[in-house]
């Protein structure tokens, strides 16, 4: 039986269920305890589980993330919350040089069952130091896994799966998704953590996206349908590993691919996605793969400029339309 929950509530329930089931699960971060979490994800957990399992930390990102790594080495299942991804830059040493490398460096003698939860993305006029993405950086780190839930149901599933896994996993949560609503079924069987989901079937073009832009892509597909363009929308749900099979199956049907991301275009997440799918699907493609991405610019404060710096629904519609036209024109010629 499913119930309507907000994205943050789904994450909150996932935390609660995992903490109730396993004593070795604990969470730590700035203001996660008494205050209840910047995006309410840990609300109520401090009262229920106490300060040792819901630990308010000093503002020491590298230090407390490293603490999580150390605890994970001896069998705990820490869930580190970094207040926002902007501050994760300070914790990258613990994540990249620590969590991601220890399993290999130790010759497989140690595991790092660590989850790092991070709100991020472009929200509403938070300006350059509070509005950015780091998926490109994290994707380039061997040893990490990255989940990017776009719905409350996925948020619930993927956080639970991440906690249960013995690998270091980053959960990228989008700040504009926390207050979006959707059905969550606690009992339903979850798809594997890194499987992509085809949110909408289509015959003319495949739109591959993730996180908040996977939601925008679905809205764009509804617009396109009014023009008679049937766009398939794939929500990757994971950026490492990427479910190439699901993407390729769709591209082989639609012969056109549009990759939509919020990440900056240059060497962003979309660069890898389009390169890999071009290699794999080249002979099925009727047109060059197109990327729609954020501009290569620190996010401006001004609202209009901020909006112009990342793809909007209208941009996705226009790009898909153009891709379909270009392909049919070149076919005709």
């Amino acid at each position, binding site marked *: 039986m499913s119930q309507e929950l907000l994205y943050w509530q789904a994450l909150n329930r996932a935390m609660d269920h995992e903490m109730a089931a396993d004593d070795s699960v604990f969470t730590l971060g700035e203001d996660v305890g008494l205050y209840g979490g910047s995006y309410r994800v840990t609300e109520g957990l401090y009262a229920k589980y106490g300060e040792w399992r819901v630990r308010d930390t000093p503002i020491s990102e590298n230090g407390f993330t*490293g603490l999580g790594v150390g*605890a994970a080495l*001896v069998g705990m299942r820490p869930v580190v919350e970094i207040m926002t991804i902007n501050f994760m830059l300070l914790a990258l040493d613990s994540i990249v040089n620590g969590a991601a490398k220890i*399993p*290999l460096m*130790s*010759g497989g*003698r140690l595991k790092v069952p660590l989850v790092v939860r991070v709100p991020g993305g472009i929200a509403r006029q938070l300006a350059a130091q509070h509005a950015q993405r780091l998926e490109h950086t994290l994707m380039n780190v061997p040893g990490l896994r990255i989940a990017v839930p776009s719905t409350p149901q996925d948020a619930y599933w993927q956080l639970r799966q991440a906690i249960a896994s*013995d690998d270091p996993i980053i959960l990228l949560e989008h700040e504009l998704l926390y207050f979006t609503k959707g059905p969550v079924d606690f009992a339903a069987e979850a798809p594997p*953590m890194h499987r992509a989901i085809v949110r909408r079937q289509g015959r003319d073009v495949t739109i591959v996206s993730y996180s908040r832009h996977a939601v925008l892509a679905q809205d764009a597909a509804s617009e396109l349908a009014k023009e008679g363009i049937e766009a398939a929308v794939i929500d990757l749900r994971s950026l490492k590993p990427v479910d190439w099979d699901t993407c390729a199956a769709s591209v082989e049907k639609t012969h056109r691919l549009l990759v939509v991301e919020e990440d900056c275009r240059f060497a962003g997440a979309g660069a890898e996605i389009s390169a890999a799918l071009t290699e794999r699907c080249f002979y099925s493609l009727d047109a060059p793969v197109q990327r729609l991405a954020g501009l290569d610019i620190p996010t401006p404060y001004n609202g209009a400029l901020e909006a112009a710096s990342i793809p909007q629904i209208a941009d996705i519609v226009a790009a898909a339309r153009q891709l379909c036209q270009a392909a049919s024109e070149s076919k005709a010629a």
Partner: protein
Amino acid sequence: MERETLHRMLRDMLLCRAFEERAAEEYSKGNIVGFLHLYPGEEAVAAGVINAAGPSDYIVSNYREHGHALVRGTPAREVMAELFGKATGMSRGMGGSMHMFDPERRFMGGYAIVGQTCPIAVGIAYAVAMRGLPEVVICFLGDGAVNQGTFHESLNMASLWRLPVLFVCENNHYAIGTEIHRHSAVPEVFKRVAAYNIPAEKIDGMDVLKVHEATKHALERIRRGGGPQFIECETYRYRGHSMADPGTYRPAVELKAYQSWDPIAAAIRDVEFKYPTPEELAEVGSDNVKLFVDHLIDGEHLAAADVEEMKQDVQKIVDDAVQFALQSAKPTMDSAMDYLNHAHRHEVLM
């Protein structure tokens, strides 16, 4: 102190010295490659500290950690084979000199990011505290690490939550080529630690007995619930920072002064039966004499012949370790991938 502990510490120090000198030789031969940071001069710290720890205590160390692993009990064969990059090494040839792991002995790693040992040790201690176990985490760090943010962040958290960590600063006065007076506004490390409400003391890191004693007491305080403790061991490395460093920035007289204060020679004097001649006493200087006399009063004895035997003994261990490393198989890329992915072997990813 028990005679047995005394002997074990001397033997550990001799093993570390012989192992490291041989590692330097094997490096010149090309059997060991990459960065190699050697430990001669600092052996009293590893021997004194780790011999005071219990088997269920954890050790977290940095990249100058061969000695720590050897004292902890990792067979010399596995340490040497790791330096040789072989599949039989303690990290299966994946970590090398700076990344040695032996979780079975609770040796939780060598880390090459200066300061990184601190948060990792604090994290292990957090887990220990949560479980209410009587274990302690021993965290080694250099004098250079004291200037890292992670050091201060970790001291703060350890103190705030009264975590069972013993921080041991191996103050060898240098961060590579930068002498402590040029890298720290307050060169007395223990004073900086005091700001975090952590009991900190400075001890003579060339004297294994003092190191051992201080560690024992610090561990007792931690186990009694006294929270984290800090020991600054003043010591010296006889070689350069790594094999790539000839160490020319240090005045020759400084090196000589510390060599005359060799912790191994001091430890041998501590356990030797023979009374020195007045000339010998004059030569080693007054501190050593005091050390020696104090110790004789304690009534611990060891014949010079025993020391010789010990030296031959550790040399055999080191020779055997090199043979073992030479003959061991190389690791494969398949095994590397398996180590990388071993934690999710049974998970369906997609």
